[in-house]
């Protein structure tokens, strides 16, 4: 169909002022500064309220994960049975350990929620990093070299994709007696890299046909150079988008696994573990379950919004 949007209306970029003697074509680019595509994206992001809200929340969560003691002086493991299922007091006691009440073992729910951020963020970021590295590698090799390599890697990807995610994670994690954070990360990454691999492969297949890649080859550039200088930087945008959106999903998945009793377990402080524990006194003390659940939801939502905003900025065509 016809070209309609403003993106596509051809707007010659340079000004017509042919004043410079050295430049017969009057080469004054539209903007005075060097503007990379990344900085253009950043320019868009800064003006997106969705991005600002989610970014503030994410920064808050990261600070929480890195330095929980900034938010509470109480320890998540201090159990005072006298405070067994103690109700939250009147609203208004900000940053007090009893803000959200106490759980069955008399531990401050507020403190546990603050300290629980670390496990969730760690798993979310850890899985995302591992998945991105592995997926990008597989996707790039498959997409760039094609042929038999591609066929083999793509079939392996398909096989992994065929494994139901939660069921697979359940099976793997139940074989571990002690489930530390890194075990959960590895198990989840082992099953989760396929999406990124596919996205990366698709991007690389398109990009490797671009004239600038052909131009680099014509100059005699080595395969490594072509991959790292030309293909990777251009394939990165869709990968980053998928990865940020997936990050929220991994946090939710970790909570789910912990809830089911195969993810993180006591004594690790984690939202999933707390949600699981909260189930027991759902009627008398619903807050024990609700507070960590809300934390999971807010975190997942933040990352989803963040991913959405990043996608809009990096790829305006998807809008």
């Amino acid at each position, binding site marked *: 169909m016809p070209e309609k949007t403003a993106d596509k209306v051809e707007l010659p970029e340079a000004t017509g002022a042919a004043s410079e003697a050295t430049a017969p*074509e009057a080469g004054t680019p539209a903007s005075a500064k060097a503007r990379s595509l990344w900085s253009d994206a950043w320019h868009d992001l800064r003006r997106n309220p969705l991005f600002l809200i989610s970014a503030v929340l994410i920064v808050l969560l990261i600070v929480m994960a890195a330095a929980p003691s900034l938010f509470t002086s109480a320890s998540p493991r201090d159990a005072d049975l006298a405070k067994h299922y103690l109700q939250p007091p009147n609203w208004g006691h900000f940053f007090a350990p009893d803000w959200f009440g106490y759980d069955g073992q008399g531990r401050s729910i507020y403190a546990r929620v603050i300290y629980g951020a670390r496990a969730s963020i760690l798993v979310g970021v850890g899985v995302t990093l591992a998945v991105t590295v592995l997926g990008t590698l597989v996707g790039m090799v498959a997409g760039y070299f094609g042929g038999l390599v591609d066929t083999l890697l793509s079939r392996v990807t398909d096989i992994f994709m065929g494994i139901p995610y939660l069921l697979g994670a359940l099976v793997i994690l139940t074989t571990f007696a002690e489930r530390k954070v890194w075990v959960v990360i590895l198990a989840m990454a082992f099953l989760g890299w396929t999406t990124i691999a596919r996205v990366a492969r698709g991007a690389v297949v398109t990009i490797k046909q671009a004239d600038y890649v052909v131009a680099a080859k014509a100059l005699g550039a080595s395969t490594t150079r072509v991959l790292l200088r030309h293909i990777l930087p251009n394939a990165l945008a869709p990968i980053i988008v998928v990865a940020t959106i997936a990050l929220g999903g991994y946090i939710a998945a970790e909570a789910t696994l912990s809830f089911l009793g195969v993810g993180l377990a006591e004594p690790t402080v984690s939202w999933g573990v707390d949600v699981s524990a909260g189930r027991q006194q759902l009627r008398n003390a619903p807050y024990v379950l609700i507070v960590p659940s809300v934390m999971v939801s807010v975190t997942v939502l933040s990352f989803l919004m963040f991913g959405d905003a990043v996608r809009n900025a990096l790829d305006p065509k998807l809008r």
Partner: protein
Amino acid sequence: MAEPTKLAKDDEPQDDATPNVSEVETVEAASEEEAVAALDAHVERGEPILQVRNLVKHFPLTQGILFKKQIGAVKAVDGISFDLYQGETLGIVGESGCGKSTVAKLLMNLEQATAGEIFYKGQDITRLSGRALKAVRRNIQMVFQDPYTSLNPRMTVGDIIGEPFDIHPEVAPKGDRRRKVQELLDVVGLNPEYVNRYPHQFSGGQRQRIGIARGLALNPEIIICDEPVSALDVSVQAQVINLMERLQDEFNLSYVFIAHDLSIVRHISDRVGVMYLGKMAEIGTDTQIYDHPTHPYTQALLSAVPVPDPDAREGRERIILTGDVPSPANPPSGCRFRTRCWKAQDKCAEEVPLLAVPERFQGTDSPAAHESACHFAEEKDVVHAA
């Protein structure tokens, strides 16, 4: 690289003085008799810098997912031969699907030839690899069609033009590179201060200049231009063409200029080859091809060019071909043009016409005495108004 001096101003269109019209050009522009003399000029210029012999590229058509079976081949280039001399421009024209872009890729060694040879200064480069190939690449560079996709959007202009030096560090010592890049920008008429800008900050014509600067960086002898101006606006096309001509004179470059725009090809080329369905239909000097074409396809192609002059238009004979170009996967037997040719006879279906000077013109001084692959080659002027 020869020291680029302050000549950017020469590019100013107002300067009517053309200090560097190449010798060949003047000879050919003069008159028809002298056109033949121009042919001899090649001999004087000694050995061709590039010799292409029976170049073939077939792309296999396969079926099956895991175990691929070849079921046929697209005969993109099917036996092409030509020479390129130092400092000359060889134009290659033809319609889409005729294989001209594949020829460019083969010359650049970006595709592996199925058969045939490409001799660069006597050395066959089609089977080279590794270090030897890299050395040859320094001397044969390329300018691409689409200035929007031929520059990496994530790299600055400085990095793009400087990349050849990263790949061939022997050409420019490290500390010297920034200066070299700025010189190159200056040579192609862009402000040297723009090294830190990104391609999307430039217009199409400026980007094409950046692409040309990259092609010049290694100081090559040959530049393969694949439709270098067809993506540009008319007013910018002329700027880029003038720039390319100036650079040719300055650095003694040889161009293979591939395009579908016949007027531009005539303007820039010393010799022209006409391709049809993977074969060369006719080849000769620009005067021979444009004013004395003997192949019916060339004649039809020339007569179909819309001319921006309604009066000249009305006096011209137009040959409107019927039908489309057949598929290169299944080309017609014998002469490939016979399905659309008004002269076709039984012989054309049976015998492949060879690219040679037609018998009747052999040994004559006639400008029609140039290579043409037609059994019934006949001179016919379709460009000039009757």
